[in-house]
């Protein structure tokens, strides 16, 4: 099955390293993967729609069952599309047919590539909105990715009060009023990415204090963050990955990956 056409026509592929982000034109194989880099793929569901018949054949029976459980047919379609495209992308990296790719969930709930014990050091994180899906891939370190729509209408002050630290709230307050909604989503997605990377649940959100690292400019580099009792070294990269969307990738550099999960 030639799925490379989908990758070329629909997806945006960026490589992030500390201090730089650039569109990829080179190899997409793990053998050529630089350990310091994160590959990020993004795509709009709208551009994948025409490949639905093909992508829907790639999902596992369990995923098919889950897809059927969604209340809205749009959610079913989007879930099928993203699970399908995940296999297409991973298949390119390992030079295997996408239908052979198996994804298993670890104890922590994180998905993992399962291929006869091979590629056990591959880590990926998938996040989506109702318009876009984003995938981050890295080797040898845990990764968390979060994408949000920055035009959502949500109860900002209450969520800030509930989940953001005093420092984070202050940082938002000192920005221009028209910027505050974006700053809220930046902090939210940053915290979400950190929690995903460390396998922490939502109760740890307030613990992940990012007030010490957030700046007016999007983050791209190495940052130390205290999360509960532990200090973590993260490579963090923020990007504006499409109109009305904001995306953060965090990979945990001082934490060796845990195969047991």
């Amino acid at each position, binding site marked *: 099955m030639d799925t490379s056409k989908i990758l070329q026509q629909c997806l945006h592929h960026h490589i992030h390293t500390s201090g730089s982000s650039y569109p990829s034109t080179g190899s997409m194989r793990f053998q050529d993967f630089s350990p310091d880099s994160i590959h990020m793929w993004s795509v709009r569901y709208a551009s994948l729609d025409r490949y639905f018949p093909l992508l829907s054949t790639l999902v596992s029976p369990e995923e098919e069952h889950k897809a059927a*459980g*969604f*209340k*809205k047919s*749009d*959610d079913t379609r989007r879930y099928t599309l993203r699970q399908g495209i995940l296999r297409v992308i991973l298949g390119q990296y390992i030079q295997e047919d996408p239908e052979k790719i198996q994804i298993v969930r670890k104890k922590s709930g994180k998905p993992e590539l399962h291929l006869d014990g091979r590629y056990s050091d591959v880590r990926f994180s998938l996040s989506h*909105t*109702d318009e876009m899906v984003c995938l981050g891939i890295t080797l040898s370190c845990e990764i968390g990715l979060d994408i*949000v729509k920055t035009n*959502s209408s*949500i*109860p900002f*002050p*209450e*969520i800030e*009060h*509930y*989940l953001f*630290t*005093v*420092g984070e709230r*202050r940082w938002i*307050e000192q920005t221009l009023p028209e910027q505050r909604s974006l700053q809220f989503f930046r902090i*939210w997605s940053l915290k*979400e990415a950190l929690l995903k990377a460390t396998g922490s*649940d*939502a*109760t740890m*959100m*307030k*613990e992940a*204090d990012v*007030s010490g690292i957030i700046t007016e400019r999007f983050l791209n580099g190495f940052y130390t963050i*205290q999360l509960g009792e532990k200090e973590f070294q993260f490579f963090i990269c923020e990007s504006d990955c499409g109109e009305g969307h904001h995306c953060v990738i965090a990979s945990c550099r001082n934490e060796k990956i845990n195969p047991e999960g």
Partner: protein
Amino acid sequence: MIFFIDETPKDVPGEATEKKEIKKSGDSINLTNQLEKMTGQEIVPRMTLTETKLLHLWEEILEIHDIALDDDFFLCGGNSLDAISLLVRIQREYQISLAADTIYRYPTIRSQASLVAENINKLNNYHRLIVPISQVGRLPPLFCVHPIDGWIGHYRDLSAFLNREQPVYGIRAQGWEPTETPFQSIQEAAREYILAIKTVQKTGPYHLLGFSGGAPYVYEIALQLEKNGEKTAFLGLIDTSAPAPEVQTYKNVTRLFSPSKQPMKIPSVVYWGFKRLKTWSIAHPDNMIYVSLVRLIRTSSGTLNRVLVSESHSNPESPVSFASDVEESRIARFPENQRPLVRSIMKNVLNYTPLDYSGDMIFFSTGPDTVFHPGDPTRGWGNYVKGSLIVITVPGDHGNLFSSPYCKILAEKIEERLLMTDGYQ
């Protein structure tokens, strides 16, 4: 014709149910299908009011209809931001405090309604101003009074680092709800807060904690409890200076010259002057001329108050306030709908004059108050507390004390002192 059948009641006892058609799901399908076959008529299960309310919240957030009681929030299209939006809406609606992962652990309307009912059942026995933060544990409860924003969020952060056996109850401000009128003085609030505390713990000794604007409130609670012959085993104030008696002097003096016998507003120039003085005094904390000058003013102020005093305790009828531009700048950082309450609490704190307290107090301080109480590590509380007053210096500053890593250290220091009090052995 439609029959209504009651499902297992999941709501608050005595709560009415609402006749609302919902999609049948889960176990109820079998039962209703059997009944439909038997009667040949459609059976629609009845929903409780909580379930109905939750259903409306789900519909608003997820923008879908046709939701069943056992549908999974995330399979209905909810994401993590939606889950937190729902959570804060539930908390606001029912005035309960829930963990951030609640929607993940209780993903259906039925399970959420059950959780809400469980919390409300507990709350029903409490005063409306009590916000339970952590209700489990064998230790005596710790009551924490809202700071200037009127809410108890800081204590939730603190509670996460306290002993798991430590129950913690917040006391929110009256006026947090749009239908409520804020209290006019700290004394009035403290009287109600004591009633609130007693719905959780009937008799003392009590354990009280107050941060920032909440500190004068807990101090006044301890005073009133003492007056009623009740014991406070732990009175902890966090990072707030004692009110400066000069405010009372200002009030007394301006009343003399005011035609309406009302104290005048504190002019902006005075406020901004003190702001500048603060910057200077932090840079010169041991300037003996300044320290002596403050002491001289304080002594003369005390004397003047005794001569002019017409009210030994704050009178809410004639409060001192800041000029409106100062007031606006001080409340600008709060959300619009919260500002009237914040303004009211600020006024109460500004006008509060404490009386002497003969019990003990622990004062957790991030550092000296170089403007109003230079050279005094108790930051003025030593003038009022006649029992033992222990000052514990904690790292961080007033703004980040409840953030990582300072919050954990503060919690450890509080716990150390709590362990030394009655009821903790």
